[in-house]
Structure formats: C-alpha cells, structure tokens
C-alpha cells in the first residue's frame, strides 16, 4: 500500500483550464501538505492542513485552492492555469507536533503538471 498517493501522476492541459490533483494518505497522520517543485528542483511549501483546517498558506496565487474533506485527503484545485504553473506538485503527510524523531514528512510520488 502506498502511504501517500496522489492522482493524476501526469497532467498536460491548456492555459486557462481548471484542474484538480487528488491526494490520500493511509498513515493516519493529522497534517497534510502541498509542496511545489520547480524546474530547478527547489521544493517550496504551498499549504498545510491539520485535521482538515488550514494552518499554513504561503504566498500562493488564490487560483490555487486546497480542500480537505477529511484528514486523510487533501486535494488541490487550480483555476485558470498559467504557463508558470508547470511544475511537480507533491502531497505529503506527517504527524502533528514539534520536530523530532518520528515527526518526519512523508511524500507522495508527485504530479507532473504541464501547462501548454
């Protein structure tokens, strides 16, 4: 069983479209995240949810809207896609609480979004 699974793995879409990426975790962790990885491999946090509540919202255009129907799922919806949105989007999950052994973040396999 994959601990953090996200779909689709690959998505090619035209500018202006609206698309969603789904994420599910079976780890039973309270906190879920969306990270964006650019072409230079830099990983940056976008959002963090704890028990379905938004706790981190970095400087992300409001075209990006996360939704957490329950603590095992965190979906990412993107409106009016732009060329610059092309990237790899990673969903992740971790136990809540301060850093320490056992509080690591576990990542999904990524969703490769290409906007043409």
């Amino acid at each position: 069983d994959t601990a953090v699974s996200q779909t689709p793995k690959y998505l090619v879409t035209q500018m202006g479209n609206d698309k969603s990426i789904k994420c599910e975790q079976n780890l039973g962790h309270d906190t879920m995240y969306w990270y964006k990885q650019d072409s230079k491999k830099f990983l940056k946090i976008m959002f963090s949810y704890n028990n379905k509540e938004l706790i981190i919202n970095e400087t992300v255009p409001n075209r990006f809207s996360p939704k957490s129907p329950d603590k095992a799922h965190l979906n990412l919806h993107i409106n009016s896609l732009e060329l610059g949105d092309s990237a790899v989007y990673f969903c992740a999950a971790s136990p809540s609480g301060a850093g320490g052994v056992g509080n690591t973040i576990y990542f999904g396999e990524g969703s490769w979004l290409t906007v043409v």
Partner: protein
Amino acid sequence: GESVGLHLPTLSVQEGDNSIINCAYSNSASDYFIWYKQESGKGPQFIIDIRSNMDKRQGQRVTVLLNKTVKHLSLQIAATQPGDSAVYFCAEKMGYSTLTFGKGTMLLVSP
C-alpha cells in the same frame, strides 16, 4: 569532486567510494533536521534525521553530522552504489513550524 551544474550542485563519485554531501542551513533556531533522497520521477524519500541536541547519528550506510556552530549538516554515504544516484535534500524545522528544504545536491555514482 563537486561542481555547479546547470541546475544543481553535483557530486560525482565512483562505486564503492564514500560520499559526503554538505548542506548549510539557514535558521540557528532550527531543532530538527532531515535528509531526503529523491530519485528521478519520484517523491522525496526519508533517509535519516537528527535533533539539534545531537551531533551525529548513524543509519545503515549513512551518517548525518550536525555542526550547529557553523550551521552545517552533512550526509555521509559509505560504499556508494549506483542505486544511490539521486538528488539529496537537507531540510530543517524549528518547533512546530513546517520543514524548509535546501536547494539539493545531485549525486552521480559511476559503476
């Protein structure tokens, strides 16, 4: 040796060598650090972690060293194998904050 590639610093080693990947972290108040390995087409995978009250931690073939004085973290991989070829990220965390990732180093292992 190390070189700056088009996107990432790259470390090229021969199979069987020991590899050392370095990371300078930014926040002197960070109290938890993790090394991740990211293979091509996959998500970052946890390798080893260390808390700020330690200066060394060993795993299977990997050792993490933490020098808080100079805010430096290193990952040592013993007897490097071709399967170790990947991008390696260090990440830091302070208390309840989320992880902040470094820029990544590509490790290339030649047979």
